[in-house]
């Protein structure tokens, strides 16, 4: 089947999409957007978190056909004209990136958190990121990164 949607502001039209295929597969294998990572395929790890019509979801649990006529933003769409988004910069600065596999999902989840709650408390950060697993960092650097991103964003505004 054919699926049309907007991804990171660009119109995409892909053909021969298998009816049982996930949005994650379509993004990675058909649209050349491998930023969203494929790990658990059951919504447990959060590595494939993307915005669907402005709401963070696991792309592995969205059927590609459900994205038809919808607006998708992936980790590739967070940065503005070659400049890292403050959330991305904070993850680098804080050393919150080790193997990097969980990072795209955490970036989208953090981006969403700070849009909703610019100055989140630690419990709010933990709750917002509860659906994103990281095997490397022990999460402390990730929490640091979110706090730094909140501070950086506040300074920008």
């Amino acid at each position: 089947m054919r699926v049309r949607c907007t991804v990171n502001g660009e119109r995409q039209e892909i053909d021969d999409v298998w009816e049982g295929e996930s949005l994650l597969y379509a993004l990675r294998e058909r649209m050349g957007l491998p930023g969203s990572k494929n790990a658990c395929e059951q919504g447990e790890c959060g590595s494939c978190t993307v915005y669907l019509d402005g709401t963070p979801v696991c792309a592995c649990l969205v059927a590609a056909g459900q994205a038809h006529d919808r607006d998708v933003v992936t980790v590739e769409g967070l940065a503005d004209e070659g400049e890292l988004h403050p959330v991305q910069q904070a993850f680098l600065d804080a050393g919150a990136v080790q193997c990097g596999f969980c990072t795209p999902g955490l970036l989208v989840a953090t981006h969403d958190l700070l849009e909703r709650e610019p100055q989140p408390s630690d419990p709010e950060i933990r709750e917002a990121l509860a659906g994103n697993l990281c095997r490397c960092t022990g999460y402390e650097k990730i929490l640091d990164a979110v706090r730094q991103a909140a501070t950086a964003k506040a300074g920008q505004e």
Partner: protein
Amino acid sequence: MEFLRPATWAEALAAKAEHPGALPIAGGTDVMVELNFDATRPDYLLDLTRIDDLDDWSPDGERLRIGAGVTYSRLITELADRLPGLAMASRTVGSPQIRNRGTVAGNLGSASPAGDAHPPLLTSDAVVEAHSLRGVRHIPITEFYTGVKRNALAPDELIAAVLTPPADGPQQFAKIGTRNAMVISVTAFALALHPNTGTVAAAFGSAAPTPRRATDAEAFLAAELTDTGRWDSRAELDPAAVTRFGALVAEAASPIDDVRGTADYRKHALSVMARRTLAWAWNDYRRNQVRTCA
């Protein structure tokens, strides 16, 4: 496989009538896992996310009518004051990403004994509104679960909404799992006190082939509270009665040993959760407030 994208509810019902084997998909949090892991290959997927009518909730007489497309996230932000038990259960579902997609109707469609929404639906005497081209059927929640992952829907029916009265007293929910997010419950328990009618409702999940009410425990506690005048006095509970209530809840269960826990553990956990939630609910009642959850 064919992907059906009805734009209206009438089209969806027609599609389900024509293809009774079609698998409805909304949030996809169960269906996509089955597809990703090759566990199911339906001939038709019936996408319900384009039907705007399903996304609303509204008062309906004495009850609230929650459309099948209302997500857990929206239940939490919009209905926690009126449906505190269901909102508490919704908070324990998956993760933010899962709650942004998953629906109570999806929980009902899957009818897993571990679905988090089931115990609070049971304690509030919810009704499932099923539609087909043949008409509308209201299925009492206690008659909805018919077996492990089986429900009372006919092959041509779709869930349009869940009807549930707003809380008329304290409600509580508790769930045992290995961490705070992304866990299938080892066992879960919901409690609702109905001071206006002098009754109690208690239900559990993951401890029998279906979610289930603990009717003997309910009757015991209601009689205890009535006979001792505590609905009026709001006096502290008798510890022996609390213990007995927990034991009766555990007796109502018929759990199995599996990877998440043993049958013995589940029974023990249920008795503990029953005692704890009763203490919390009774404290709320004594303070004369309905808990709207933290």
